[in-house]
C-alpha cells in the first residue's frame, strides 16, 4: 500500500511536466468587423462528462459557390488540459433525408487548455438544408 501511495504521489508530481496542461492565451480585435450569420442551435447531450469538457460557443453559416451551405461551429475546451475529440458533420435535405457525401466523416481535433477552435464543413449538394454536428471524446 505504501508503494502504491508513493507511485501515486510521483505520478501526480510528474503529470504537470508532461505538457498536458498547455493553456492558450488569445488576442483579437475588440470590435470584430465580421458580422456572422448565427444559427440558433439545439443541443442533445448524451455524454454529460464530455458536455462539461467541450462547449459550443457559436454556430454560423454562409452560402458558398452560389448555392452550397457552409457551416462553422466554434468549440471551446472548458478545462485546462489538452482535450482530444472527434467530430462529424451530417447533412439533411428539406425533407429531412440524409444527403451524404465526402464531407461526412469523423475527424480528429486536439484542443489545448481553454482553447477555442472553429470547425467547418461545406455541403457538397445544393439540396443540403440542415446539418448535425456530432462530437465524441477522442481515444
Amino acid at each position, binding site marked *: *500500500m505504501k508503494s*502504491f501511495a508513493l507511485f501515486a504521489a510521483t505520478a501526480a508530481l510528474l503529470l504537470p511536466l508532461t505538457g498536458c496542461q498547455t493553456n492558450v492565451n488569445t488576442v483579437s480585435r475588440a470590435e470584430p468587423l465580421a458580422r456572422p450569420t448565427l444559427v440558433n442551435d439545439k443541443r442533445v447531450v448524451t455524454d454529460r462528462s464530455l458536455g462539461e469538457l467541450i462547449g459550443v460557443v457559436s454556430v454560423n453559416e454562409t452560402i*458558398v*459557390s*452560389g448555392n*452550397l451551405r*457552409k457551416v462553422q461551429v466554434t468549440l471551446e475546451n472548458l478545462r485546462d488540459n489538452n482535450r482530444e475529440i*472527434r467530430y462529424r458533420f451530417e447533412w439533411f435535405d428539406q425533407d429531412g433525408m440524409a444527403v451524404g*457525401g*465526402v*464531407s461526412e*466523416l*469523423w*475527424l*480528429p481535433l486536439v484542443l489545448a487548455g481553454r482553447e477555442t477552435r472553429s470547425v*467547418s*464543413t*461545406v455541403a*457538397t*449538394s*445544393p439540396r443540403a438544408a440542415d446539418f448535425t454536428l456530432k462530437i*465524441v471524446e*477522442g*481515444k
Partner: protein
Amino acid sequence: MNSPLRRFSVVSLLAAGLLSLSGCQTPRDAKYIESGGASTVVTLDQINIQDWNRAADAMVASLLSSGVLERVPEQPAVLAISRIVNNTQQQVDTDSLTKKIRVALNQSGKVITTTTLGLGGKVEDPLAKESAEMAAMMAGQKQVTRLPYYTLSGKLLEDRAQAGKVKQVTYTFQLSLTTVKDGLAVWEEEKQITKQGTRSSVGW
C-alpha cells in the same frame, strides 16, 4: 492482505471487468467497421483510408469555398484529370484522392469530369470514346469532343522524422486547378496530415 489494498484490488477487478464490456477492447475476430471511421487502423508507413478521406474533404471544402467555380461562363464546367505526381515511398493509386473530389464536385453540380480525354491519350473510358467516334463516323460527321475548361494536377509528398523510438510521418497533398484557355492556376491548396507514434494502432 490489509483492508485498503483488498478494496483497491476489488475496484481494479471491477474496472477491468466493466472495461471488457464497454467495447473498447481491441477486436480479435474480423468484423465490419465504418470505412475511414474512428475504429480504422492507423499506420506510420502508409497513407491510410482516413488520410485520403481527410485530404479529399479538405480539398473539396477549400475549392467550393474559394468561389472560382462561380466564375465559370457555362456550368457545369468540364474538368480533366491531369498528372498527380507521387513522390512518396509507397505505391499509391491517386484515384484514392481524385475520385472522392470528383464525386463531391459532381454532386455539387458545379463540375463534371470528362472520361474520354486523358493525359498522354490514356482515357478512363475507352469504350465511350470509341463509341462516340463510331457514331460520328456512321453519321458522316466529325466527332465533336467537349474540351475541358479546367484541369486538376497535383503532387503527393512524404516527410519522415524520428526521435528515439518515436516515428513521425507527414503526408502532403497538393492540388492545382488550372484554366485551360490561359494555363493559369486559379485555385491551389495544400493539406498536410501528420502521424506520430512508435507502432501501428487500431482507432484514432
